[in-house]
């Protein structure tokens, strides 16, 4: 097999075009990529146990807390069981926090500030107190809030511990993210993505100095990212600060094969471009193949041992690299061959 491309290579591009539309559908329409709580804000508790955890039991154990937008998912593996418990912030606590931050910014306006603190106290404890100054009022209300939160968390924790007979030093992870922090993080993600993309484009143009090949590399990169996103949509992996590195990694990995292919087709003189594309494919599939093999082993281990971050990153990379095989050898290679043919 010295030449798998022959003269019909242009038709190859049809397949990725169809796949691209399917991916767009998966990402934007159904099931769609979810945003993680570090972007939307909310609470997440991850528990691990040696005994089985059933989602319905978790719902039952937590019913008394009236957690808004509660979502529970469980996992069982040969090594143990786990539960993911996600909910949004208690509206009461949110309201109290808003009142207190207002009270704090109005400290100089004694009457109003005391009124706000008292309002918060009323929400928390059902009664107001007499305060001689705004600082003391705020202090009192803040103390009440922190007691309330502590009580809430301890109760939540202890009802989970009791329900699932967890040991004292059980393994857990807890996250509480405010919506505004999430928004600011998201803004940061957008910014670094845009700048990263611009820098990357510059590097590629500087390396190849030709429009079509450079554009082909960049299209392949975009294709790969959508493949990663489609994988996230399918596996219900949210877009978050932990999955962001995976998408960036994808960019790094995907360009490796594209650069190798472009450099061989454009800069070398031996054989026909089709033959050069075919040998490149052998090298490229080895590159992607080794990475995929390593990723599969990581996916399996991290899934069973519930190492959330590594599982998510390797799953996204897996989908992205499958996408890379398609985009590099079915789009990028034909584009370059076409480009070489036109140059003659």
């Amino acid at each position, binding site marked *: 097999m010295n030449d798998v491309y022959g003269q019909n290579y242009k038709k190859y591009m049809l397949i990725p075009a169809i796949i691209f539309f399917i991916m767009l559908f998966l990402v934007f329409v159904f099931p769609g990529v979810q945003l993680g709580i570090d972007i939307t804000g909310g609470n997440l508790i991850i528990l691990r146990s040696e005994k089985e955890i059933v989602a319905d039991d978790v719902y039952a154990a937590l019913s008394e807390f009236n957690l808004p937008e509660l979502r529970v998912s469980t996992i069982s593996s040969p090594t143990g069981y786990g539960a993911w418990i996600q909910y949004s912030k208690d509206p009461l606590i949110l309201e109290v926090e808003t009142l207190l931050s207002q009270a704090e910014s109005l400290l100089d306006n004694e009457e109003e500030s005391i009124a706000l603190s008292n309002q918060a106290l009323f929400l928390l404890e059902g009664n107001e107190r007499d305060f001689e100054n705004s600082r003391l009022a705020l202090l009192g209300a803040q103390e009440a809030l922190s007691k309330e939160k502590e009580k809430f968390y301890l109760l939540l924790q202890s009802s989970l511990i009791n329900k699932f007979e967890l040991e004292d030093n059980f393994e857990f992870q807890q996250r509480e993210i405010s919506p*505004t922090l999430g928004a600011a*993080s998201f803004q940061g993600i957008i910014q670094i993505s845009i700048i990263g993309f611009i820098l990357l484009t510059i590097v590629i143009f500087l390396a190849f100095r030709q429009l079509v090949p450079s554009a082909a590399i960049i299209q392949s990169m975009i294709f790969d990212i959508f493949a990663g996103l489609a994988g996230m949509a399918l596996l219900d992996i949210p877009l978050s600060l932990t999955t962001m590195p995976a998408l960036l990694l994808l960019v*790094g990995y995907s360009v490796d094969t594209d650069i190798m292919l472009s450099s061989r087709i454009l800069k070398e003189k031996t054989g026909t471009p089709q033959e050069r594309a075919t040998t490149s494919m052998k090298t490229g599939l080895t590159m992607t193949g080794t990475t995929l093999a390593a990723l599969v082993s990581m996916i399996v281990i991290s899934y069973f041992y519930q190492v959330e971050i590594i599982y998510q990153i390797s799953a996204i990379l897996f989908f992205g690299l499958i996408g890379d095989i398609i985009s590099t050898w079915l789009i990028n290679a034909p584009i370059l061959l076409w480009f070489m043919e036109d140059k003659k």
Partner: protein
Amino acid sequence: MTLLKNWKIIILIIFLIISLGIIFVDVGNPQKGYLGNTNIRLGLDFEGGTLLQVELQREVSVEEINRIANIISQRIDPTGLRDNLVTPIGNQFIVIQLSETDISEIERIESRIRQQGQFESTINGETIFTGDQILRVLRGDTGYGVFQQGMFYEWRLPFVLNERAVESFTEKTFHQCTPVSFTPGGQPIYDCAKTMFFLDKPNAIIIVSEEQYENDREYLFLGDRQLNIPQQTNIDEVVENSQLPVIIFRDELDYNYLSTIKNETGFNNIIISQDLENKILQDLEAQNFSVEVLKINQRPWVWDVLSAKQIISLTEGITNQNVATIEQARRYSTLYITGQRDSFEEAIRDLEELAILLESGSLPTPVKTISRETISASLGETFKSLVIIMGIIAFIVIGIVISARYRNWKLAIPIFVIGASEVIIIFGFIALVRMPLDLAAFAGLIAAMGTGIDSQIVITDEIMSKSKKVKESLMKRIKSALFIIITSAFTLIAVMFPIIMFARTFPGIDKLYGFATVAMVGALIGVLITRPAFTVIIRKIVEKIEKN
């Protein structure tokens, strides 16, 4: 062994030795917070701990956010003993890393950040006024600031007390100066009582070893400018002013006395000095006290445990020396604290510290929300072993794939060796810059390794497969491989660079800092050190194969 004469190989070996040195040298027993017997610090994911992300009410200036970060780190850890990291991010966020995972303890720390501190000013063992009685520090006043006085810089800090505090101040400072001698001009020179300032005094009984107490006595007597302890400070006076029960431990503890104190004060908490941990900790806990052990370091232990912050001398102008009875005394509602320093910067620092203290350590811009993330220590432990297993398995899998592809296991060896060298040098870098190793950094390592392996396959293929048919020179083949490698390394760097650039600007992005740094450094190490060496090795192997 001609290979060892090649300078590219020599460079690789030198870097390996240096890295191994950085990782392992100078490590005694395994340290807490470090990976095994190495100098590699472990991050939150592996050690367990809590990350707090504080959002302020509004954006503030760079100076202000640094100031707020300072106040926060002062308030959550006045003694500087815990290994907490407080970092401002952009103009509105502050990230705090704690080793704490206990919910109640974290809640306490959170409320310390949000709440006003409890400021107290005392004299002769009595409270004069507390923080909530300070109506305001007159920051905008013309009397506020640093003024040049001849060779010195004098700072002045005016503040206003409420009515009750003014009354208490007048009463408790009345005639607290005594004339001790006279100037040549006949003016009396006074010796005045001192007021002491405390912030966030603990509600606890304090037990300190006699040895430590006597050490501290000496320390306080000598004074410490950095800690605002004037010379000739008497430790007994500090204890008296704190109004806290302090027990000096000699040979044994009198439990009857302890329970009397407990009944009088209602305190169930005890703070003991570290050197008493082995002697009395268990007994106290058996008696149902909740005991905290406070470490001993270079600072005066007693001063720290009492949360003493400042000692300010009264001046005769304010103690109403000129009138006979308290009824005639003048009431000052605005008080001034002043001090002198040799340099403007020192004076500003003193003024600022004291102003923050009087404002009860409250933040100049209120906190809007605090987000947090906790990973339990036991989970971190599990992560750590898993990551190591995963790394090893991934390596083995890669080895198998490569051996299968080239049908020659000898080719897998250099790829293996070079891959391992890359990991060692990256770890050396991590240990060198004391960057904590967390899951994100681990992902960065995957990135670097991935492109590394990719590049090695490119080099191998470029040299191997073509050599059979094509009469291209070896040099030319290597050159073309080099172009591919360098371009791909730079694309990785281009993507990671913005993360490093904005890690201190946007919240959340700071979590990716370790990831981006490791990936970028890994790419550079690959291009500059390991891949050139790899090329040399592969060339030797190919030359040998071609000869046969």
